[in-house]
Structures are given as structure tokens and as C-alpha cells.
């Protein structure tokens, strides 16, 4: 494997970064968040052709794999883009094998998809909803990422005979109630989804295998998100400490401040190496890909959370204000630590795979 991105991957990353700088500069993002309406972002993201990257061409995507998805996650976080629908959709794609039309609608932006797992759980350990012998699904999935944006749900269900499956449910169909919840991180959203005999269609996939894959993908993409937020906060902290003067000098000239910024950099560098290795590992279906995914989820999102605190410390009081942009990234990184499982939970998964006592 190569320890660097291909030219194509770098070009993609640069193009996405430029697009985000044009379309979603932070002032615009704040405007969307304050108005509560982020549909403009989702519409333009789809319309300008960004949404299919990392999705198999046979499913209507533009090709590329987990590395491209990770690059996307990192850049979106770096811009604090309201990307819950994107994340939910790409995590649902493994469940939608053979359902190109559903994927196409999701990519076009008209109908993002979301797997009904609670956002704080490792997807492979999420609770099952109930399904009857007519395919009607009942139960409640709380705090599902992007469920308020989705047009299609993938419901993990268990039948009376104990067999599990994944089934397709239309978000605005009968028996479906979606209640949005508010997050500290306004750049993402979750919603409680309550199903009451909601009709569903079968998906011809191995439910357990798909949820395992979703878990690994969620781990890597959340780590990539954390990486992007961390990088942005580092850049802000360095810039601020170069400008802000106290005791007659820029505060960045104090060793304590320098070392603090460097500690973020160390986390970013380690995180970047880890995340892209893990992404490549998923792309290649490496036999240790679960361990790689678990390691980066646990390490990088924990580092991101610490980096958020350090960046806030470097900014001092101004970093604590609403008017300053830091809190957007601070909250993003703090959510990433717990999104799809805390570091402790992923370390447990890792430990189990090592078969220690």
C-alpha cells in the first residue's frame, strides 16, 4: 500500500475543499443553523455532483471507496457542514445492495437514507425492532442520526421466530412518526423514529453482516470527522495565538501555548495516519479491519475531544463565546467521541477481538 493519497484522491479532496469554501463558508453555515433550515446545503451538495463519491458506480455512485468517504468526512467536518444526511446515507449503502434506485434517490438528495440505529450505539449492537409475518414493523429507534432528513429508513428487525433482517420503510409512510431531538452540535441532527405496524419491504442482505460492516464504516468515518474538526481547531488556535498579544508579545511565543498547540498537532498527525490506514483496510477487506476501525475510533475521537479542550484553552475567553466560530468545531469533536460508540466501548470490542482473558 502507498502511504500517500493518489493524485486523483488529492484532486478530489482539493475540489471538495474549494467547493465547501465557496458554498459553505462558516458564515453561511451559521446562517443555515440559525434559521434551522439546512436544505440548501443538501440540495447544492447533490446538485453539484458531490454526493456520489465513495459509492459504487453500480449503485449509481461515482465510484471510489472508503478512503474517498473518509476524505469527504474530514472535509465536511473541517467546514462544520451540516452533513448528517450524507453520513446516514453512506452508512446505509451496505444495506441497500441491489437497490440502486433507492441509493440513486438518496444521492440525488431527494430522499436520504438512514439505518434505524441509535446514534450513540455501535451499529452492530443496536436493538432490533419487531416485525410481524406481514412485514409490518413496530418499535422505537431513539436518536437516529439524520432520521429527520431521511426519506427512506432501513429497519433492523427481528421476527417472532428470532430471525433477523433489514427492511425498507418509507419515512413518510403509514405508521411512522419522526420526532427531531436537539443536539449540542447543531451541525448534525438526530431524531426518534417510532414505528407502529409500518409496512416494509424486504432487503436481500445478511442483516448481521451488514450491521457489522456499517459499524466498521461508522467507526472510520466518525474518526475522519473528528480529524477534520481537530485540524480546523488547530489551524484556528495557531492563527489566534499568532495574533493575540499579552504582556507585549503574541501569546503564541509562550512555550506553554506552543506546546499545547503541538499536542493537538501530534493528535492530528497520528489520527491522519490511523484513519486513512483503517479506511484502506476496509477497502481491501483486510482480515484485521475491525481492529483497525476500533483502534482509530477509540483513539482519534478521544484525541479530538482533548484537542477541542486544548484549542478552547488557547483561545481563552473569546473561544467560549457564541460569536466566535470555535464552538462549532468544539461541539462537533465532542459529539464524535460518542457518536456510534464511545472510545471505551470500541476498546472493549478491540480487546474482545484480541482474545485476552
Amino acid at each position, binding site marked *: 500500500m502507498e502511504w500517500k493519497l493518489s493524485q486523483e484522491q488529492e484532486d478530489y479532496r482539493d475540489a471538495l475543499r474549494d467547493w465547501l469554501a465557496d458554498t459553505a463558508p462558516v458564515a453561511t453555515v451559521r446562517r443555515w443553523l440559525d434559521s434551522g433550515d439546512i436544505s440548501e446545503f443538501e440540495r447544492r451538495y447533490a446538485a453539484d455532483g458531490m454526493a456520489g463519491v465513495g459509492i459504487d458506480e453500480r449503485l449509481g455512485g461515482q465510484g471510489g471507496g472508503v478512503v474517498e468517504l473518509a476524505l469527504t468526512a474530514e472535509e465536511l467536518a473541517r467546514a462544520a457542514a451540516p452533513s448528517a444526511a450524507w453520513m446516514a446515507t453512506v452508512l446505509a449503502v451496505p444495506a441497500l445492495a441491489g437497490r440502486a434506485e433507492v441509493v440513486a434517490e438518496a444521492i440525488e438528495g431527494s430522499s436520504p437514507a438512514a439505518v434505524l440505529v441509535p446514534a450513540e450505539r455501535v451499529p452492530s449492537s443496536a436493538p432490533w425492532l419487531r416485525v410481524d409475518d406481514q412485514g409490518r414493523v413496530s418499535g422505537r429507534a431513539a436518536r437516529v442520526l439524520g432520521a429527520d432528513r431521511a426519506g427512506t429508513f432501513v429497519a433492523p428487525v427481528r421476527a417472532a421466530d428470532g430471525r433477523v433482517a433489514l427492511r425498507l420503510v418509507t419515512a413518510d409512510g403509514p405508521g411512522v412518526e419522526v420526532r427531531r431531538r436537539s443536539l449540542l452540535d447543531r451541525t448534525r441532527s438526530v431524531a426518534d423514529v417510532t414505528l407502529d405496524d409500518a409496512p416494509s419491504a424486504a432487503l436481500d442482505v445478511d442483516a448481521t453482516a451488514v450491521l457489522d460492516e456499517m459499524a466498521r464504516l461508522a467507526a472510520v468515518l466518525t474518526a475522519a470527522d473528528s480529524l477534520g474538526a481537530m485540524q480546523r481547531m488547530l489551524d484556528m488556535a495557531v492563527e489566534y495565538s499568532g495574533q493575540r498579544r499579552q504582556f507585549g508579545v503574541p501569546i503564541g511565543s*509562550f*512555550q*506553554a501555548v506552543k*506546546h499545547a498547540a503541538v499536542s493537538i498537532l501530534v493528535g492530528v498527525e497520528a489520527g491522519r495516519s490511523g484513519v486513512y490506514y483503517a479506511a484502506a483496510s476496509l477497502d481491501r477487506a483486510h482480515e484485521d479491519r475491525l481492529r483497525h476501525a476500533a483502534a482509530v475510533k477509540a483513539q482519534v475521537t478521544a484525541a479530538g475531544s482533548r484537542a477541542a479542550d486544548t484549542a478552547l484553552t488557547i483561545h481563552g475567553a473569546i473561544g467560549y463565546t457564541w460569536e466566535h466560530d470555535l464552538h462549532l468545531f468544539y461541539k462537533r469533536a465532542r459529539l464524535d467521541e460518542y457518536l456510534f460508540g464511545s472510545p471505551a466501548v470500541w476498546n472493549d470490542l478491540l480487546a474482545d477481538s484480541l482474545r485476552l482473558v
Partner: protein
Amino acid sequence: MDFELTEDQQTIRKAVAELAAKFDDQYWMETDTAHEFPHEFYDAFAKAGWLGITTPEEYGGHGYGITEASLLLEEVAASGAGMNGASSLHMSIFGMHPVVLHGSEEMKRENLPRIASGELHVCFGVTEPGAGLDTTRITTFARRNGDDYVINGRKVWISKALESEKILLLTRTQKFEDSPRKTDGLTLFFTDLDRDHIDIRPIRKMGRNAVSSNELFIDDLRVPASHRVGEEGKGFYYLLDGLNPERCLVAAEALGIGRAALRRAVRYANEREVFGRPIGQNQGIQFPLADSLAKLDAAELMLRKATWLYDCGLPCGREANTAKYLCAEAGFEAADRALQTHGGMGYSEEYHVARYFREARLTRIAPLSQEMVLNFLGSHVLGLPRSY
């Protein structure tokens, strides 16, 4: 609430510091390197009467409490003597507590004055290869035989056994499986280290090499019943009372090493110039040392509270354990930072901070590990389900 030490305590501190100052870092480096017991130091402290600090006055001691004993060991350690100095005195200063409380009058009269005078060197034999934190699992066994007991077994990590005449030995007189409760059936003896029946083998260690730590192989050691401390089967309970004071004393030692280390670090940081200025002017050097000062001061307060509670006869398990935890953490961190402050010279033995580092490290393990303290606080104080 009065945060001042009493006049006696202040006097003790000052006097101990003065006496300990006569043995400089060079002395300790030499005894440590040569693996030689510091007899000169020990004898000086014995002569000045310090070994009997907690021994009751009627047996030739001063009858002071744990506060005074911890101040003594803290100042010894802080002088640069570290764990070597402290451990050479430690057993005499407090270890005989079970004998004081539960030993026969004859045992006390025969031994305590000699301990107070320093003539009698003693050690403490509890730990075994299969029973460290889990004391009730010891297997060294004392079988009653007429007026004697015959003892067989193995001990490990017995400090100062090489130099000792007697040992306070914990055995079982009833096997673990045969005891109604696991804490029953243990019996304490205070007896001679009969080299014909006890093979003493020093263990090579990372540090604190002036005071040996040893494996003991006990083979048909015959001891008279009169050497038994208190009643058969109650040994564990006799030890319990000494556990909290023990934590306080080691906490004091860790704290002292931390102070010694910080002192050297500050001195070096003021003297050593790099890039045209004293290295102490760099925040990367200064802040860790200031942070260590704050933590040592906080740990000290915890220790003072713990020893005060014990001397007042009040429960002090929470405080003694916390004091050991915080003092060991702060002491070791200060020693590590002192080493780092000295740069390459810290890695050499010349500036002594390496020795402080090696010795401070021990206090995170003994007399019980930091993790075990957390076990205790978690289950016994917070009331969380016991995890061990």
C-alpha cells in the same frame, strides 16, 4: 481547625532534618551502589533516640504518634536519603505495633527497649509469591508441636531481612480451606531469623539497594509458643490496625522524595543556561515544576489529615489510602520531572535525581498498589460493587 504543627512536631522536623543533613547525597549514592546497609546513618538515628519515637515510654521509647513518625520519615526522605534512609529505620519506627498492642508483657520487655535503642534490627514477613495484596492466601504454615510451632513456607519482598535479627512473621495455623472465614486462621510470630532454617536470598532491584529485599525459604523452623504474638488465628486482625498507619508512613516517604527532587530540579533550572538563559525561564520546564509543587502541597495536606485522625483514634481508612495515593503520584511525578529538568545529567547518577526516580517509583507499588487504593475507595468508600 488548626493547620499548624505543634511545637513538638516542629522541633522533631527540624532536628531530624539537621541530623539527616549530615549524610549527603554522595553517602546515599555510595551505599545504594554498593548495596550496603547504611549502618552509620542508622546508628546516628538510633543514638539520638529516634527509633523509639512511637515505642511506649515504659519500654524506652517516646510514645509519640503516627504524625510524628511520618514527619520523621518525611524529613529523612526529603534530605536526599529517600527510601534507602527511610526503609532502614521504618520497621523499627512503627513495624512493631502489633507487638505493642498484642504481644505478651515478656515479649515486649525483652524486645521493645532493644528496638528503641537500635540494637535489635527487625523485619516484617507477610508477603508471599502467591499472596501480595491478597494476604489471606498465604500458605506459610505453623504446625503446633508440643510447646513449639514448626514453620514451613516462603516469603518474598522482605525488606532488611539480611541485616535483621528478628522477624514479625505471619503464618497460617489453619489452612485457608479449613477456616470459617478467610481472615481467620492466621497467626503472628515475633521470632529469631534462624539462618539454619531460613534461607535468605536478596532480590536484585531497580532501586533502594542500600536496604535489601529478600526471598525467605523457611524450612522446619522451630519456634517456642512464647514467640507467638497474641492468640492463634487472630493474626490478620492484629495486622489490620497497622495497615492505615503504614500507608501514612510510605506516603510521607514518597512526599519527602518529591520534595528532594523538586528542590534539586529548581536549583538546576536556575543554574543551567541554554540558549543564553536559565532553563527555568522556559515555561516547558517551569510549569511542570510549579504543577508538582501544587500537587505535593495538596498531597501533604491529605497526609496531615490522615495522621491526625489516626492519632485521635478516629477511623482513617479513606484518608490514609488517599494520602498514599496522592503522595505516591505527586512524589513520583516530581521525581520524573526533576530527571527531565536535568536533561542528560538527569540520566546519569551524578545529580542523584535518577536515584530519587528509581526510589519514588516503588511507592506506586508498595505497601499496596495505586490500583488497590482505587479498589478500596471504589468499593469501601463509594459503595460500588466490589471488583476484586
